[in-house]
């Protein structure tokens, strides 16, 4: 006999839905800092709170909206840092088509023109801010070839591609280059990084800084 959710009485399903609704409510959990007090002694908690309390004692209640706003901005920054860490490796990255196509074109162009066709590219691929170039090196990484590669890398550096890694293969080398461009994320990550409230948080911090400056005058 096949199991169906309708075998659970409706009243229990309704109760479970009510429980789920509460648990999915964003404010439904005791804050993390309160849980911390469970494993920290009173003295440890007081020490951990000292910078915040000294800030609050100095600026009072009028700093609270700016403090909350800064906290939200810090959360966004932490999220961006974790996304940057997730995209640290070439294999982890997705492709930013516009940048990747333009950069692959530049890589091929530089190889042809700067090194006077002495460098042979087997393959080049750019993703989000990393590019991998496979260069033919039949004699290995000898002094002459090294000078050629260094000259090539220096020219690419002028085009915003910094040297990141070099791996030597049997008859080829793999050159990895990194750009300091902003990483392009997926739709949901971009939306999480730029919520509608972001401008409001920035304005609150700015307003508080303005008030502080006026108080000094």
């Amino acid at each position, binding site marked *: 006999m096949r199991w169906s959710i309708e075998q659970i009485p409706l009243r229990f399903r309704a109760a479970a839905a009510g429980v789920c609704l509460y648990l999915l409510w964003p404010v439904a959990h005791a804050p993390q800092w309160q849980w911390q007090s*469970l494993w920290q002694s009173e003295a440890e908690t007081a020490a951990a709170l000292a910078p915040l309390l000294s800030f609050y004692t100095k600026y009072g209640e009028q700093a609270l909206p700016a403090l909350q706003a800064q906290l939200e901005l810090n959360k966004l920054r932490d999220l961006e840092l974790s996304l940057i860490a997730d995209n640290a490796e070439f294999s982890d990255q997705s492709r930013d088509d516009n940048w990747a196509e333009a950069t692959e074109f530049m890589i091929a162009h530089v190889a042809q023109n700067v090194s006077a066709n002495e460098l042979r590219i087997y393959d080049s691929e750019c993703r989000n801010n990393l590019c991998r170039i496979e260069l033919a090196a039949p004699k290995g990484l000898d002094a002459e070839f090294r000078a050629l590669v260094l000259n090539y890398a220096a020219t690419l550096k002028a085009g915003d591609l910094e040297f990141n890694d070099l791996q030597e293969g049997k008859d080829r080398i793999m050159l990895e280059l990194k750009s300091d461009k902003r990483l392009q994320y997926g739709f949901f990550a971009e939306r999480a990084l730029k919520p509608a409230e972001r401008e409001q948080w920035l304005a609150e911090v700015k307003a508080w800084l303005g008030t502080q400056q006026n108080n000094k005058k």
Partner: protein
Amino acid sequence: MAWHPTKQQKVAAVYFIAGFLVVAAIDGLVRLMLPKPAVLAPHPALSKAMSRQDVSLQQWNQAAERLEEKRKLSRL
């Protein structure tokens, strides 16, 4: 014709609300039972603001330090 809930639907609605309220009560109790740092007691406004954010003490301190840095920079 106006819609009238059946008795079964009314019972389900009561269970839905009861499920929500029971977990809310448990959550409220957990919040009450969790210790609050004694140093926060003289600062109810700060304590109230802190209870709205599910972050660690370290993140609160970082926010305060960042604001202090911004204030110093804005004065330059």
